[in-house]
């Protein structure tokens, strides 16, 4: 068995884990990060993509609102390349209480948010699809986050400072010496080989799965996975994030992220964070709710539906070691030494993507205290790789680049404008065995055709280049198409139903996908 020695072992390759890895590496600690799958496959890759201004929490959860407002400002400075500066609007629809709007305005100011009430006419001019019956409108600093870009940048940054990152390494055992956690054994999901990592401190950053990881160490973390359903609409219905100005509820936010508009979300407790089923009822509820913000919403083409599990931590879990921050939708650092008498293990739970940097800072502060070494946190000012120019990405970037693509570099994914060169670059940088990993890196298969035209191209090219054997290419293709179908089957009506039918003809009629040789 391979053995590695490290200062900090981070379990979980979502936004939190990647943030912890980046923070630790900047403090001069050696860090190893593992995930049971590819990075950003859990909750972080399954959210609506909102960079919170704080507005959503302003009234209900002022602590979270303050954190969001502050972290939003910092991320804009250090991670511009992972963000789009869409701006956001909070609008009072005919069903929203106007008195809430006054409370909202006061609370937003108190949370340190930049907020401005604008005339309804101005809001409607900027957003022609917005409900013309809105009565008040507030402009805030919402934005959208490309979760894959962000996590990838954090990991690349950590690696540049010596970190080791191991995708597809699932923790099978936690190594304990009496009351002390000293590392963990991982199994490579691709080869079955085991790797042992000895660590000065283990950080459980498994989010909604952190209860499962804690159990391996022999302690309890009462994380409650809260499932949220989201639906992506085929194109941007608005330039800015649209929020209903009311007490947060289901389906009251539409986020323009990349080429789509995402409406979210719901909140249902689930026993298993891997339960990602979306019921037709949840989807319909979401789509009906969209009508209030954008009339005609339900006639728009729903492209895909998915769900993610929030890592909610009930208040009874309390907070320890992270100072006196009030417990809320904010995060909590659990020092298992103080809490359970089990040293060498720290769990970070709760929180949200927007506050990933703060979560990492608070966590690594505790880790540094335990290890007795490590420098001051630098993530407030250290710019992530790719964001050096401080330019936000822009939805038109790919279209602009496609204009200059040479003719011998054809598009393989027309919906999301991915060229053969893009594919070659990503595959060379990060060899992978699943098409879904390539999808996350490039957005291949995430457009209107949901892989109908690009999936077989990618599989075929990887086979031609010798990266896939025949059987591998066939099973990768089958798996990818199956995965895409999961997100489409509940919304197969209207335009998407026609697309699905065409895609099926391609896969079954042309390729006979069901009977490809193993």
């Amino acid at each position, binding site marked *: 068995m391979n053995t590695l020695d490290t200062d900090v072992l981070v379990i979980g390759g979502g936004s939190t884990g990647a943030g912890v890895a980046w923070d630790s590496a900047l403090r001069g600690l050696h860090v190893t990060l593992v995930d049971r799958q590819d990075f950003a496959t859990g909750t972080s890759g399954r959210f609506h993509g909102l960079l919170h201004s704080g507005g959503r929490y302003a009234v209900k959860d002022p602590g979270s609102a303050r954190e969001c407002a502050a972290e939003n400002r910092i991320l804009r400075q250090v991670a511009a390349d992972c963000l789009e500066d869409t701006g956001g609007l909070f609008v009072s629809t005919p069903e929203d209480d106007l008195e809430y709007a006054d409370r909202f305005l006061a609370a937003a100011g108190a949370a340190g948010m930049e907020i401005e009430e604008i005339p309804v006419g101005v809001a409607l001019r*900027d957003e*022609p*699809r917005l409900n013309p019956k809105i009565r008040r409108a507030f402009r805030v600093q919402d934005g959208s986050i490309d979760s894959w870009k962000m996590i990838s940048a954090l990991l690349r940054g950590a690696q540049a400072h010596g970190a080791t990152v191991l995708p597809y390494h699932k923790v099978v055992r936690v190594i304990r010496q009496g009351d002390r956690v000293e590392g963990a054994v991982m199994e490579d999901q691709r080869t079955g080989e085991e790797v042992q990592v000895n660590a000065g401190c283990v950080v459980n950053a498994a989010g909604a799965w952190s209860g499962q990881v804690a159990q391996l160490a022999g302690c309890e973390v009462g994380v409650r996975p809260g499932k949220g359903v989201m639906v992506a609409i085929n194109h941007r219905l608005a330039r800015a994030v649209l929020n209903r100005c009311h007490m947060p509820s289901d389906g009251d936010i539409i986020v323009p992220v990349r080429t789509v508009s995402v409406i979210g979300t719901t909140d249902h407790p689930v026993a298993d964070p891997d339960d990602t089923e979306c019921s037709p009822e949840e989807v319909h509820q979401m789509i009906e709710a969209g009508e209030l913000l954008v009339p005609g919403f339900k006639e728009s083409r729903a492209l895909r539906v998915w769900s993610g599990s929030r890592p909610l931590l009930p208040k009874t879990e309390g907070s320890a070691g992270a100072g006196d921050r009030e417990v809320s939708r904010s995060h909590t650092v659990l020092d298992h030494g103080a809490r359970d008498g089990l040293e060498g293990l720290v769990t970070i739970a709760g929180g949200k993507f927007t506050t990933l940097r703060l979560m990492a800072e608070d966590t690594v502060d505790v880790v540094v205290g335990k290890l007795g070494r490590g420098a001051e946190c630098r993530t407030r000012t250290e710019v992530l790789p790719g964001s050096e120019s401080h330019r936000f990405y822009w939805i038109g970037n790919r279209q602009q680049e496609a204009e200059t693509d040479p003719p011998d570099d054809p598009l393989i994914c027309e919906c999301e404008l991915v060229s053969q060169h893009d594919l070659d670059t990503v595959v060379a940088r990060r060899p992978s065995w699943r098409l879904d990993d390539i999808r996350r890196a490039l957005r291949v298969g995430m457009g209107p055709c949901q892989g109908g035209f690009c999936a077989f191209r990618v599989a075929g090219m990887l086979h031609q280049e010798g990266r896939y054997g025949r059987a591998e290419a066939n099973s990768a293709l089958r798996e990818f198409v199956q995965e895409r179908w999961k997100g489409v089957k509940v919304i197969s009506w209207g335009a998407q139903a026609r697309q699905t039918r065409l895609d099926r003809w391609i896969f079954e009629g042309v390729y006979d996908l069901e009977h490809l040789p193993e």
Partner: protein
Amino acid sequence: MTEVAWGAEAWSEVRASLDRCIKCTVCETACPVAAVTELFPGPKTVGPQAERFRTGGHSPDLSVDYCSGCGICSRVCPQEVRIAELNSRARSELKRERGAPLRDQLVARPGLLGRAGRPVAPLFNWAMANSLIRWAGERTVGIHRKAPVPRSTTRTFSYWVGHHVGTRSARRVVYFHGCSTQWYEPYVGQKVTAILEHNGFQVVIPKQDCCGLPLQSNGLFPAARKAVTKLARQLVPDGTGDLPVISSSTSCGLMLKREAREILGADSPELRSVSARTYDIFEFLLELHQRGELRTDFKPVPLTVAYHAPCQQQNQLIGKPALEILRLIPGLRLVELDRSCCGIAGTYGVKREKYEIAMRVGEPLFADIQAEGPDLVACDSETCRWQISAATGATSVHPLEILHRAYGGS
């Protein structure tokens, strides 16, 4: 941003139509421009595909300017995606951000050239035929030296109208003649009037300006909206609020029928009213004929005529009514040219950088005409007639000129 809000409803509808694209690529195979140049990536690519990457404010792509606006893509799309309309909007955004060159401003205003040329028509026509002047015009303004330009005339159509004593009748129609009849081909308007009067109509010809179509196809939307809104007012003189409006220019007729509202997002009570009452001249005559009201006292016309249905006429979705009417004329040998586009697409083919593309687009049509060697080529659209004549040397006429001859006109 105010730009988008203008006619936001119509625009939202066009943009939302991209949702219906299933990437079947039928439009790409039918596009006559993409078939001949790599500078235009194709209607699906710059239409429903690129539109997802546009949010207004800053255009990510320039190649959409190579769309000729012929509208074939929208017509062939089995999912009813408004592809040409999407492209037209995207081009207008582009022009708004980057400004339109003087050349586009110029060709977009046929009345301007018409007015300038009229007092000195012989000189103007000589200049337009002078290769040195045309060469200079290409270098300085960007109008291709070989591009077809109309011949100016000293007597405008409105001058003729002022001296014309029309028949009085209880059955009245409004005639929308358009700029080319006004400034370059007044005889077309005279023949339309004669045909309608021959069939017992009183023809009301109000003073009228440009419909704004060339402004629109050059991406100059605010000016185009102003023009078409003004025209709609002009076309409703007192007491004519329910009369048919007859157009003899297919592209300008389409502007009134649909494009003003669907592409420009223009809207006014007059425009809505005129839009609903606008007929292509042959569409109107065919309806008369179907009711048994068209006079068919035709004299034989012993000619071979090759007929080309222009794109903008096809986009009216009224079939080919000119063909059906001309078929009634004894002695006429009618050849239907079954080709898509002559390439000119209004003002597209006169531009220095697009002339060659336009000529390649029209090549199959030109080859058919040359193989057939007809006495006349008939085509409902003026710019197409000029392009066909320039490219093939054939004499081209409006099909109503043949009808006029059959009625005994000269």
